[in-house]
Structures are given as structure tokens and as C-alpha cells.
């Protein structure tokens, strides 16, 4: 009998433990508030737990609270904190729960899971979302989003190129956060060693740039630019600088695209001559090539600047300019960047819209938001009125006193709007593969044909 009692006790204990493990997700929804708050208090410190708990908290949060998913603790999160502080001036009880995600793909997966299951209750009120993906996510999961129409945002105050991503079927969905304008940063001391100045590399043709690059490589052993070839953004940025697209009428336009061919030829020649360093992965790009001081130039979205700034001893030696083009005019492009979107799970759309409009949307708090976002995270706005502030006009010591932020905003206004496509990253993968194969001995025309076929196949054309 005693054995029986013990075994019953043990079994009960086990069942209770099991249900406690599994109950984490559902507890806040069904259980009394006491258990839920105790849970979230404990999980707030734990990294993995925090995600689920914060997600479930949307239903439990107060009238002046919003939650948001974002990534990058050095970039986007300081910007959101700046916005929270700014909005507290209007609503002193306002609270923004920023839930850090390890990468942008985590946010994409959260949307995919919620939309596929039709259960949006796990989503936060607002998500930060990559510009290149948002079009397809809104088209595929229209029920997962709430648009920003009627939020009172003056859209003319933003760069047109930036808004072209977050406007779907004529409706504005996203509040722009950062500015993806590409910068070409050079080490002026190294250029000087080879007898060049920043002016000599501004507004030149790619052929001339390759010549300079060969000289730099020979004299100093440094590459003139590097790129993560696993997600190679060079072709896209270089095409945009020409005002051209890899797409035509919604289909990939590789084979009959002379501009693309010439640009790829520049990349291939550069890689073969030791002018362009094509890295195998992201960490090789940032840690080995840029922080490892192997390059005399960096070409990417301006979010790469914090990475350049990590090498303190090179302070004052860098300066930024535009990119070369095939014709020799100055090239303007943008790469990357993200915006904030309201999800279907937001029960307080008015608060969310008011918050976004007041802070990132160019409202009264936008100057304060963007100034602090710039100071703390290096986030540069596309909001034209906010960029008039003093912080933007300051010279940056690391870039030899250049007022780079105001320069970048000015460059951003020149970025041409080119045809975009939901399959941006498929094209990037296939073009990157084509470059690799040509460097390893294949023929450009054959590879472009294969790349175009594969992208068409993926798109179902």
C-alpha cells in the first residue's frame, strides 16, 4: 500500500512538472494574472524565455504599453529607446517593451509562424522588418498587418526610395527607421601613399577605379574594397548607382542586361586582380577584412560605419564619398535598412500610430528621437526635416571632421528608385553564385543564363 501511495505521488509530481513545462505558452492567456506576472518576472532575465513571455504579454499589457520586436543592440535598439524616451513627453505612463531578436530572420519567422497558424496572439504590437522582404510578406500574409493610413504622417518628408519598399498597393505600412544610403569610405592615408586624394576616387569610372586599386594593392597590399560574398550586395548597389535594375516587368533581367554584365565583369576582374576581397561569410567580411585592417575602402549601406569605427587607431584617416559608375558620374545607391510595422495583434492601433507618427514619422518628437538614435546607435534618418538638427551638422572626428551624417542624408535624396522585386534575395544568391563560378573558370553568359533560369524557376515563371 505504501508503495502505491509513493508511486501515485511520484506520478502526480511528474505530471505536474510536465504540465508546468508545457504551460509556459498558454499560462498568461488562461491563468490568473498572478501566475503570469511571476512567470514573466522570472523570464525577463533569461534570454530564451524572454521571447515567449513578452509575446504573450501583449494581451496583458497596460493601456500605455506597446511591445516591439527588433534586432541589433548597437543600432536599432538604441533608436527605439530614443523614441520611447521622446514619447514619454506626451504620455508620461508610456512604456515600450523592446524584445531583442538575434537576427532579422527571427522576426520573419515569427510572422510566418503566426500567419501560417492563423494565431496572431503571440506577435508583439510592432515589429521591425527588413525593407527588401516586407512587400512579399504583406502580399502573402495580408491579415498579419495593419496599415499606417490615417496616422497623420507627412510622407513627403521622407526619401522616396525608402518609402517605395513600405508602400504596398498604394498604402503606407511602415514607419522608416534608418537610412540605407550606401557610402564608399576610403582610407585617405593609404590613397595618399599611392599619390591619390579623395577627389581622385570620386566621380570616376570603374575602370579607372580598378587601375587605382591595382596600384594600391601593389604598393600597400590592401584591397580597395571587400564584400561578404555569401550575401553579395555589390552587384545590386552598383546597378542602382547606374539607375538600373536586375528586374524588368517583374522578371529577372540578367541575360540581355549589358549594364549588369559590365558590372559583373568589374567585380570579377577586381576579385581576380586582388582589388576586391570577396569574403566567404559575414564575420570574415567584418572581422577579418574591415576590423582586420586589410582594406583601404568599404562600400556598403551606412550601417557599416559602426564596424569601421571599431578600429580606433584609424580614427581621422577615413572619409566617405560616392561610388564610381561605368560612365564616371557619381553613383548613389542604398542597401539594407528596415522600418517599423504594426501587426494584426496590436489591440491599440491608435496608440501605436500616434507613437510612430510622433517619433519616427517626423512628428514633434522626431528631432529628439533621431538625434539620440544617431548619438547612441549611429542610426541615420531618411526624414528630411529631422536631419536639419545640429547633431547632423557636426563633423565626425573619425572621418577627419567630415559632417558625414548630413552628407549621407544629402546623398540619400539622390538615390534613384529602381524596380524592386520580392525575390531580391533569390537574385542576389544566384548572381553571387554566377560570380563565383566565373572566377573559378566558367563563362559569364552561361552562368547568367543559368542564374536567370533558376530565379525564374523559384518565382514559378
Amino acid at each position, binding site marked *: 500500500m505504501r508503495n502505491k501511495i509513493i508511486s501515485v505521488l511520484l506520478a502526480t509530481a511528474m505530471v505536474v512538472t510536465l504540465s508546468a513545462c508545457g504551460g509556459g505558452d498558454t499560462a498568461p492567456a488562461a491563468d490568473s494574472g498572478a501566475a503570469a506576472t511571476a512567470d514573466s518576472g522570472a523570464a525577463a532575465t533569461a534570454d530564451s524565455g524572454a521571447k515567449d513571455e513578452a509575446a504573450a504579454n501583449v494581451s496583458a499589457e497596460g493601456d500605455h504599453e506597446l511591445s516591439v520586436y527588433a534586432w541589433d543592440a548597437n543600432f536599432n535598439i538604441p533608436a527605439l529607446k530614443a523614441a520611447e524616451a521622446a514619447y514619454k513627453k506626451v504620455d508620461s505612463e508610456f512604456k515600450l517593451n523592446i524584445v531583442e531578436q538575434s537576427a532579422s530572420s527571427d522576426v520573419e519567422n515569427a510572422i*510566418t509562424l503566426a500567419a*501560417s497558424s492563423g494565431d496572431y496572439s503571440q506577435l508583439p504590437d510592432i515589429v521591425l522588418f527588413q525593407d527588401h522582404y516586407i512587400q512579399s*510578406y504583406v502580399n502573402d500574409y495580408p491579415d498579419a498587418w495593419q496599415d499606417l493610413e490615417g496616422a497623420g504622417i507627412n510622407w513627403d518628408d521622407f526619401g522616396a526610395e525608402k518609402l517605395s519598399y513600405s508602400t504596398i498597393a498604394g498604402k503606407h505600412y511602415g514607419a522608416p527607421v534608418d537610412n540605407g544610403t550606401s557610402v564608399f569610405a576610403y582610407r585617405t592615408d593609404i590613397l595618399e601613399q599611392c599619390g591619390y586624394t579623395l577627389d581622385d576616387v570620386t566621380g570616376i569610372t570603374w575602370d579607372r577605379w580598378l587601375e587605382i586599386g591595382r596600384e594600391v594593392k601593389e604598393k600597400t597590399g590592401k584591397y580597395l574594397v571587400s564584400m561578404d*560574398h555569401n550575401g553579395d550586395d555589390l552587384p545590386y548597389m552598383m546597378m542602382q548607382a547606374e539607375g538600373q535594375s536586375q528586374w524588368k516587368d517583374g522578371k529577372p533581367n540578367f541575360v540581355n542586361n549589358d549594364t549588369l554584365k559590365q558590372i559583373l565583369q568589374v567585380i570579377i576582374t577586381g576579385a581576380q586582380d586582388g582589388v576586391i576581397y570577396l569574403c*566567404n561569410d559575414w564575420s570574415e567580411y567584418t572581422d577579418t577584412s574591415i576590423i*582586420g585592417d586589410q582594406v583601404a575602402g568599404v562600400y556598403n549601406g551606412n550601417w557599416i560605419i559602426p564596424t569601421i569605427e571599431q578600429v580606433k587607431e584609424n580614427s581621422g584617416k577615413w572619409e566617405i564619398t560616392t561610388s564610381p559608375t561605368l560612365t564616371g558620374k557619381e553613383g548613389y545607391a542604398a542597401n539594407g535598412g528596415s522600418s517599423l510595422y504594426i501587426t494584426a495583434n496590436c489591440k491599440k492601433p491608435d496608440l501605436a500610430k500616434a507613437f510612430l507618427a510622433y517619433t519616427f514619422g517626423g512628428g514633434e518628437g522626431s528631432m529628439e528621437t533621431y538625434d539620440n538614435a544617431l548619438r547612441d546607435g549611429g542610426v541615420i534618418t531618411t526624414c528630411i526635416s529631422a536631419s536639419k538638427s545640429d547633431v547632423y551638422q557636426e563633423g565626425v572626428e573619425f572621418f577627419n571632421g567630415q559632417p558625414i551624417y548630413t552628407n549621407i542624408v544629402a546623398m540619400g535624396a539622390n538615390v534613384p528608385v529602381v524596380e524592386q522585386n520580392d525575390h531580391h534575395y*533569390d537574385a542576389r544568391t544566384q548572381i553571387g553564385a554566377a560570380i563565383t563560378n566565373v572566377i573559378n573558370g566558367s563563362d559569364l553568359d552561361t552562368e547568367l543564363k543559368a542564374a536567370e533560369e533558376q530565379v525564374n524557376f523559384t518565382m514559378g515563371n
Partner: protein
Amino acid sequence: MEKKKSMSLLAKQRAAGWGFLVLASVMIIVMSFYPMVQALMTSFKTGSSANLKWAEPIIFNYQRMFQDKMFMRSVGNTFLYLIIQVPIMLILAILLAQLLNNKDLKFRGLFRTCVFLPCAVSLVSYALIFRTIFATQGLINIILTNLGIISENINWLGQTGTARLVIIIALIWRWTGYNMVFYLAGLQNIEYSVYEAAKIDGANGWKTFWHITVPLLRPVIIMTFIMSINGTLQLFDESVNLTNGGPANTTITMSHYIYNNSFGVGVANFGYASAMSFFVFILVAVLAAINLKVGDTRD
């Protein structure tokens, strides 16, 4: 009276047996079989995952996969790993087991632990470590340069051949010890007197190995073979973390490509991903069946 009592005991035992079984069976059905059936249904659908529709024709996803050059390449890559890596690994494992089974060997426990230790490393972390070691500015290149073997750094992960080589080396490092443990267990079940008898009959080491060890280990060898084939066909972590499928998608595996179609890149295509999963499922089943048939000596 007595008879009735024994009957009720049997009934009790049966009831207990069913009681234990029901819980496990229900769990397996709910957690495993039900999702499999659902996945099979999904594999006949297309469209955005929020709004899946029956495909037109119904086998659309299955037709599509055979026209998909990327998927066919991933199948080719996976089989390449399978054909090269599995035999090397199993032969190494059996040799190591044979060596470490020697009764006179000193520090046997230590050596066994050393060989098995790679299995204790998480798949992701070991893949990342291999990526660092084989980076263009990594340890291997530095060692080879300092030894004077190469004059210029080799871009291991940037060329198809070397990238595949690195994956195979990594797999062998990670899994040889794991298989060795099975062989060691198998070897310990072989009576030492059998070897003594062979020795008395004048058999040398090679003959003993080939005519006694291998036949007696046969069941274990078949098991490790099936497990290795199964594991290699589902290879994922190494492809994702070591090379990320590159360069130019020449090292991507089937599971990696399936993942890319569901979560990895862009918008989910669950229907197509499920269809490809069933292709892998059928491959594993067929290969395992062949293996069992060939390996079974009973008739």
C-alpha cells in the same frame, strides 16, 4: 478458486500493460504520426502558408522538385558526402575500435574517451570552429604557410572541391568516435577464446580480423551503416553553419535546401518543402531496406 485468481492476475497484468502502452502510443500518434500525415497533405498544396490550396495538378510539388536544378544539386551533394564519407568513417571506426580493444593497451580508457569526445561537442559549435580553422586567414593556412607547404593562403571554403573536402573532414572528425563505441561494444561480445583458437590455428592479425571480427560484428556494422546513411541524408548543421551551402550552392544538402524553402530565405513555401521532405523520407526508407536485405544472412 485458485484458477480464477490467476486469471484475474493475468488480466491485471494485461490491463497494466495496456495502460503503459496507451500513454506512449497516444503521444507517438499525436506528436509524430499526426504531423506526418499533415505534412503529407501539405505536400500536395501550394500557395502562401496562410492560404494553402490544393495544387493543380495534385502532384505539382513532386513534379517541380525534379525540374529544380538546385534541389537536384543538393541531392547530388548529399550523395557525394554519403559515398565518400560513410565508408571512410566506418573503416576508421572499426580500426580504432580494434586498436582500443587490445587488452594490453595502457591508458585504454583515456584513448577511448579522446576518440569519443568529439561527439560531446554540439553540432553548431563544431561546425563554426571548423569554419574558423579553415578560414582564408585561419589556423590551417597559417600552419601550412609556416611549414612552407603553401606559399599563398588557400581559400578553403571559397572553392567547391576544398569546401566539400572540409565538410567531409569535419563529418569524419565528429562521427567516427560515435560509431567506434558501437564497434567496441560489439567486440566485447566476441569471446576471447575464439581469437585464441584462431591463433593456435596459425591465423595472423589480418586473417583474424577479416574472418572472425568482421563476420561476428556484422549486425553492428549493418546498424552503423543504416544510422550513418540516415544521418548523412539528413545532413543539415554542417551545410548551414560551415559553408552556408556555398560557394555557389555547391555544398548545399537536401535538408538545408528544404529549410531554405520553409524558413531560411524569403517567404515560406511549406508545400514544396514538405514534398521534398517526403522525397528524403522515401530515400532513407529504400536505402535502409536494401541494407537490411543485403546484410541479412538468414534466409
